[in-house]
């Protein structure tokens, strides 16, 4: 009896377990003109479910949380600054266009129209050299090494039909870098 109950519970948990295995890749920092620009892409996040949700007209957002840290040898890294980049997509069914808004730390920095799924997916998941920090945020000596950590918050879903849970990717770390501009 107990084994049957355990089996049923296991099935429920397996069914309720998140199937999306999105991850942030290619997190690359670049120091240009006193700014730290960040490039990355989100893989395996833009599924049919996301597309259906966008096409239903619901504003759908991905929030990218990027943290700048100073590397410390054999010790916890020192968190220097944090920035968010929120990408919100809205579909216009009459014009059949996707309006994509980019907000950094809550402020609208860019709006873009996408007319296809590929264009939309690229706008929402691929980022090249997005300025996120200024070098004035960075503290440390000339030899200090820094790194970035980022993750994406993809909204939420319900577990066991009534427990809402956040859907996030794991933290992804960049290579370590110094304040030497190319």
């Amino acid at each position, binding site marked *: 009896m107990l084994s049957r109950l355990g089996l049923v519970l296991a099935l429920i948990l397996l069914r309720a377990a998140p199937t999306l295995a999105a991850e942030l890749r290619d997190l690359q920092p670049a120091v240009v003109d006193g700014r730290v620009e960040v490039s990355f892409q989100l893989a395996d996040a833009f599924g049919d479910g996301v597309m259906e*949700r966008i096409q*239903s007209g*619901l504003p759908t957002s991905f929030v990218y949380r990027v943290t700048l840290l100073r590397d410390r040898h054999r010790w916890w890294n020192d968190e220097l600054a944090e920035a968010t980049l929120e990408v919100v997509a809205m579909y216009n*069914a009459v014009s059949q266009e996707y309006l994509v808004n980019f907000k950094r730390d809550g402020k609208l920095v860019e709006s873009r129209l996408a007319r296809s799924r590929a264009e939309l997916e690229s706008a929402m998941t691929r980022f090249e050299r997005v300025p996120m920090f200024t070098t004035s945020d960075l503290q440390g000596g000339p030899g200090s090494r820094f790194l970035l950590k980022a993750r994406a918050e993809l909204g939420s879903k*319900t577990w066991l039909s*009534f427990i809402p849970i956040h859907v996030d990717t794991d933290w992804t770390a960049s290579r370590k870098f110094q304040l030497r501009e190319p």
Partner: protein
Amino acid sequence: MRLLESFHKRRRDARFILRMLVVLLICLTAVFYLLQKSRDLPSLLVANRVLLFVLFYINVVLILAVLFVLARSIFKLLLERRARILGAKFRTKLVATYVGLSLVPVLVMFVYANVLLQQSVDRWFAAPVESVLRQGSAVAENLLRSSEQATLHDARLIASELSGLELDRPRQRARLDRRLQPALVREDLDFLGVYREADFVTAVVDPDAGLGDLPEPHRSMLLEAAVGGEAAQPIPPPRGDGQLVLAAVPIPGSVPAGGVLVAGRLLSPGVATQTNQLIDAYQQYRQLETQKPELRTSQVLIFLMVTLLVLLASTWVGLYLARQVTQPIEALAEGTRRISGGDLSHRVEVPADDELAVLVSSFNMMTAELQRSRREREERTQELQAANRQLAEERGLLVAVLQSVAAGVIAVDREERVFLCNDAALAMLRQSEAEVRDRPIREVWADDERRKLLPLLESDAAADDGAGNGSVGRRDAGSHQVRLVLGGEWKTFEVKRAALREPDGSPLGQVLVLEDLTELIRAQQLAAWNEAARRIAHEIKNPLTPIQLAAERVLRRHRQGQDVGEALEDGVRIIVREVETLKAMVDEFSRFARMPRPQPADVDLAGMVQETVKLYRSVKPGVEVAGDVAPDAAHAWADPEQLRGALINLLDNAVEATEAPGRVDVRTARTDGRVQLVVADTGRGIPPEAKEKLFQPHFSTKGRGTGLGLAIVNRVVADHHGTIRVEDNPPRGTVFTIELPAR
């Protein structure tokens, strides 16, 4: 004061309950409002799942609150049960009942309502609805796409007419406008614009279309057309309602390259609105469908919140009601335990309602009554102890007094058990205290001698009337003389008996006071014998004097030479007579000294009395002698001759003492198994001081005789185990009473 505190506590409780009810009402109202408004919640809010998280955490808090309330109660109940507190089991049952009664219906209602809700949500997304909306939206989109295609077609046609158009000559613009205007009218368009890539060149507008201002095609559309592509896009008109369908196509051969022609056709407001509504409706439906899990979850969470609120309230109320019942019962149980432990000052001070209030009040009244009773009992105990101490002191004093008096005192209770016996009594009776104390008097005096004292205790009447034993004689009223042989010695005691009675008169026991008369009697007897010797000497001397005188007369005559014949004859006669007197006197003494042992037999008292009375009837004129024999006292068990002698002695004395006119009565009677022989006269009586010596030998009030008559009578009566007493016979005279055993 207690009532006031109880009142305040109840008022506080009532306020608390009222506040809780108000809070619950507010919560329920808020939830209901939220439930109603949840349909109109902005999509963004729902889409971001903010509502879900808020609801979820509210539910978590409520679940924790319910669990806390339940766990706290269960933990307390477990502790109480483990501590074996009285009433814990009852409280457990009550709490389980109340919580179960609230929990089960609420959970059933939650499950049932949840199922209904899910079914309702499913019905919202029923297939027919989705199909109608999708088809409607498709129709609207097809209309738009058709309009776009038509506009594109017209744009292509006009663009081909504009092939080779030079765009960088401003002077050509007026001519271009004149070329565009007929095309606008011919193709029934509302807008025609020429752009160089994304830059505006010129445009014509149908003045009847009411666009108000030039529309602005989207840059991306212009750029797409500039590189050779085509693009169509419906946009809202600059002014007014409707939908302006723009189509951008490249102008072939334009100089420079990148010329774009944009054609616009305005859909009528009615068509545009309907189209938009159809598309919007389907979009909204799709949004709802996309949000279906979230909507379902939010509904479940809202309903769960309501359920938990109700459950929390009902559980709390259940526990509160259980506490209202169990608290007084527990307090009563605790009170019972305390009171059984002796703490009568404990009071149950728990507010209760209805019958429980009556029970608590009755319990407190009972406790107060018990406390009052105990206080009174303690006071009475103290009083009794004080009285006992006083009694003990008095008893000690009494014992000291009794021990110090020369008289022996023996007291027996109602069961004739000795409870008091002083040292004098023990010494008189030659007994120890151990033999006497707390033992029945009949065991204490079981021997032949001391048993003679028992008749004094047999009954009030017997004791008052005198003992039937020959050794017990009535000395005077209330006292008896008893002679015993103790330790080989004759002892004579004067015994007085008194009844001990309760204040209400009921018998309590008896007390005997013994006075040792042995020495006194011995002294009296010595004195009596002295008197007897004196009188014997006197009596002997009396005849000797005539004898001496007669002898001296004969001797004198003889010496004088006279004739002694006559004198001798007289003298001899006198001497003989006096010698006879002396002889009679000696005989009487001898008879007294040699009193024979009585030979008892059945005596016919009636005959004896009548015969004796007859002898004395005519002895003294004027003195009537009468006899009266009771039928039940016609016989006695005695020596007939000795009894007759005693009767004659008494009768003789009575007749001699009675002067004419007078009366002497001889009668018999029966009392308590004893026969009385009474001789009563109306003579001169006997002085009190003489009564004490009356039965002593040689005591006489007559001034003649030997004085042995009554001594002999007393001896005869004593030998018959009887008693004799002398009393006055009012108004004058004397009564002698002889009491003999009937047999």
